[in-house]
Structure formats: C-alpha cells, structure tokens
C-alpha cells in the first residue's frame, strides 16, 4: 500500500471520527519506492556540453512560446535560470574549481519524485504519479493555490501568471502524453547529442550510475543524486563534483516531503475524536447547577482566568 493511500484512509477515517491517532504510526514507517516499472533518466553531467538542444526540443515538443533568445545563444549562461512558464527545462553553467574543465553544465527539470511533494500538497489531486514514473498534472481542476510550488524541494513548477483566465502550473511532465506512455523517451533525451541523458527503468539506471562510478572512479564523485533524496526521484544525477557545486540541494534528506507533515496529520483524527467529548465534558462540569443562559454577571470575580485552551 502506498503511503498516499494510507494517508487518505487515515484522514477519511479521521473525518468520520471513528478511530484515534494510533493509526498515525501504524503503517507509515516504510517508504514508497516508486512503481516497479517506473522509468527515469540518468543525467551524467560529465557528458553535458551545454548545447541547449534539450531546451529547444522541450520547447517544440511541449509547444512552448517562442524564447526570448535563440537556443544557440550561450549568453543565457551568464545568469542562473530556473524553470518557469516559458521553459520546462533549463541548463545552467557552473564554475567548478576542482574540475579540470572549470565549467560544468546541469540540466534541470521536474525530477519526477517517487513521492512527489507537489502531489501530496495538492488539495484537488491535480497531480498523478503514473505507472511509467511521470508526475503529470491536470490543469482542468487546478485551482491555482500554488502550494505545489511551495512544496517542491527543487523549485521546479512555474506558474503562467501572465494568463488572466486560465493560469496553470507549468512543469515537465516527462513528455507523458506524447511519448512516455507510448514507451518512447522524452524529447530532451532523444535530442541530446552527448547522451548525457540516459533513459531507462529507474531501478536499472541506479545500477548503471553506480557502475559508471565504480568503473571510472576518477571521473565521478561517488554519489547518485536522486537515488535517495526526498524518497528518491525518477531523474538521477551523477557528476564529477559534489552535488552542491552544481547547486543541487544536499540538505534535503532522504525522507519524502510528506514525512514532515505526518506529525500534524497524525493529530487530526485525535483532535476530531477527543475534542467533542473533552469540551462537552468540561461544559457539563463548568455549568453544573447553573442556568445554561447568561445569568447574573457579577457572580464571577473579574480577575478569573478565562480558561482558553
């Protein structure tokens, strides 16, 4: 059973106020490892040459608006960029001291988490983690609260603020509609000349990544970013330098984001079931021998504690 489903059950049960907070710890111990056949992409930043072909391919595949600058204009690297409503993937350049090249590039896009924070934070369930491993988005029900953007640990979702009447979250969907569900790799993987992007089953890619590191230890820093981070991501990164040098957040921990929220969610059924009894009881005690309605106001001493919880 997936944790999301578990939480749904937990909350639904809580709403009915039929059982207490004990369920909060019962089955939430493990971590959802992702669908067994989930696909992923291994990004080998040692191969990336910063040609921006992936950006161009994504732009065409997803029918994004015309870019501000041509895709062969490398001046965009002068400023770090992030994904937004016009670009679902961007490549950034990083000055790396210990690398022989001095400069490295890293493509970023939605990492397609095993347990996506965007999905778990969405109150209309606009996100779906598909069997193929993609995290897709349903714009028809999105209310536009942008909690997913708050929740995403990688700062990936963008919002089409410029649209007045149909603003939507814009994020990489692994080319799900046009490619992934037909068993094809996403457009960026297809076009990458260097094969810096390797498409495959996530479980195989993890082996591949470790194998590359093992075979050529001089070439790689020994860490597969995304193997464990925030519960594991569909997109994985290996690099010749430590992840933080390529602006990958190394403080995220290995627990999915939803784990942080668990403690609160665990209290919900408790409050729902205990509070009514507790406060009704207090009411009976506090108003014993007294008229229910407003009595003489002077019988209470002015300095009495007002007894808020």
């Amino acid at each position, binding site marked *: 059973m997936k944790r999301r489903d578990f939480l749904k059950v937990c909350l639904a049960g809580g709403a009915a106020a039929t059982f207490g907070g004990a369920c909060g710890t019962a089955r939430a111990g493990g971590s959802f490892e992702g669908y067994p056949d989930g696909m992923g992409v291994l990004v080998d930043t040692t*191969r990336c040459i910063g040609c921006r072909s992936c950006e161009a391919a994504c732009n065409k595949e997803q029918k994004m608006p015309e870019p501000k600058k041509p895709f062969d204009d490398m001046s965009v690297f002068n400023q770090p960029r992030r994904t937004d409503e016009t670009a679902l993937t961007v490549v950034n350049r990083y000055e790396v001291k210990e690398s022989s*090249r001095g400069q490295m590039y890293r493509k970023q896009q939605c990492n397609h988490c095993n347990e996506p924070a965007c999905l778990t934070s969405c109150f209309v369930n606009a996100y779906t983690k598909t069997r193929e491993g993609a995290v897709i988005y349903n714009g028809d029900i999105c209310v536009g609260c942008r909690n997913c953007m708050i929740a995403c640990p990688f700062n990936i979702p963008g919002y089409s603020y410029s649209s007045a009447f149909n603003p939507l979250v814009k994020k990489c969907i692994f080319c799900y509609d046009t490619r992934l569900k037909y*068993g094809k790799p996403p457009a960026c993987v297809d076009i990458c000349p260097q094969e810096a992007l390797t*498409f495959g089953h996530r479980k195989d890619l993890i082996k591949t990544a470790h194998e590359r590191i093992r075979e050529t230890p001089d070439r790689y820093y020994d860490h597969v970013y995304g193997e464990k981070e925030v519960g594991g991501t569909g997109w994985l990164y290996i690099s010749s330098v430590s992840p933080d040098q390529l602006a990958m957040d190394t403080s995220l921990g290995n627990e999915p984001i939803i784990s942080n929220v668990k403690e609160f969610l665990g209290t919900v059924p408790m409050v729902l079931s205990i509070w009514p009894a507790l406060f009704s009881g207090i009411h009976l005690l506090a108003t014993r021998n007294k008229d229910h309605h407003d009595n003489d106001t002077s019988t209470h001493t002015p300095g009495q504690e007002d007894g808020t919880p």
Partner: protein
Amino acid sequence: MKSDRSLQALIPLLLLLAVLLPAAGWGISVPDSIILNKNGALYDQISFDHARHIRVTKECSDCHHHTTGTLVEDPNCIRCHRNSGPSQTVSCRGCHTPDPFSAKSLRDKDHAPKTYHLDKPGLKGAMHQSCVGCHTKSKKGPTTCTGCHPRSAAGDAFYNTGEYAPKPKAGKSGH
C-alpha cells in the same frame, strides 16, 4: 509500434555511417571519408575526413576501442580484451545502435542481463562523446555544433536562430 520510424522523424541528429568496411582488420580497406548524418533533419550531412584523423591520432583504438589496430590500454577494457584480436565489426554503427532508448532496445537489454556492455551509448552519443571529447581534450578541432555540421533551415527554425530568431518586441517588456 513504429518506434524506429518516429525516432527518425523525431531524432534530428540520427547519424549514419554511409560507407562501411566490407571486411574487418587493419590494412585491408580503410575509407578515406565517411558520410555522416545522412538522414539528419536539423543538421546537414557531412563528409568525415577519416584519412586525416588517421594521420593525427596515434592509435586506432583511440576511437575504435579494441576492435582494430593496437591493443587498448584502458585497465577496464584489458580485463577482458587483453587477448582479443581484431573484431569483425569495426564501424561505429556495428555496435552502437541508432535508437538506444526505443522500447525494443530497452526490452533487449532486459532480456540480456548477462551482457556486460549494457551501458553502451547509442550511435549519436558514442560519436559525439568521442569527437567532442577528443577535440576538447586535445584543444584541436571544432567543439561547437556548427563547427562540424552546418545547421539546416529546419534546424534554424528548431533552435529559433538565424532568420527564425525571436524578434525583439517593441514596447511591452516583462518584469
């Protein structure tokens, strides 16, 4: 599923070796030039000057691994290929598939778990890694896209460059 056909339509840089060696082995028949990127949509095809590269590189194995010429020195390779003779297949395409990520390729990988070279780049990746890697390392030869292959009109449109470059919009500016 016609993944091959759609790959050809969608992978603009599908590289093909036009001329292949009829027989393997050093000294038998070495092409002087090879037409590359014959079916490419975004970049024009180019004639690869094989003869010149033979002159400027020390060993065939710099590009051809253990398949021809001198033995490789890479410790990873010599674990198995210390005594491998020249192989029947020398061309890039002989080993590196043009569609490494098609459903069929992935399925083949799944069904051959004992194959050692599972993490083998596709044809396009292998050639680019080889060319760009060597050009960068030796600081000789082109390392940009158009340094090797001129971009086609379709490519200009794809990359929003050249005559398809975005026009600066008058007036309205973003935040």
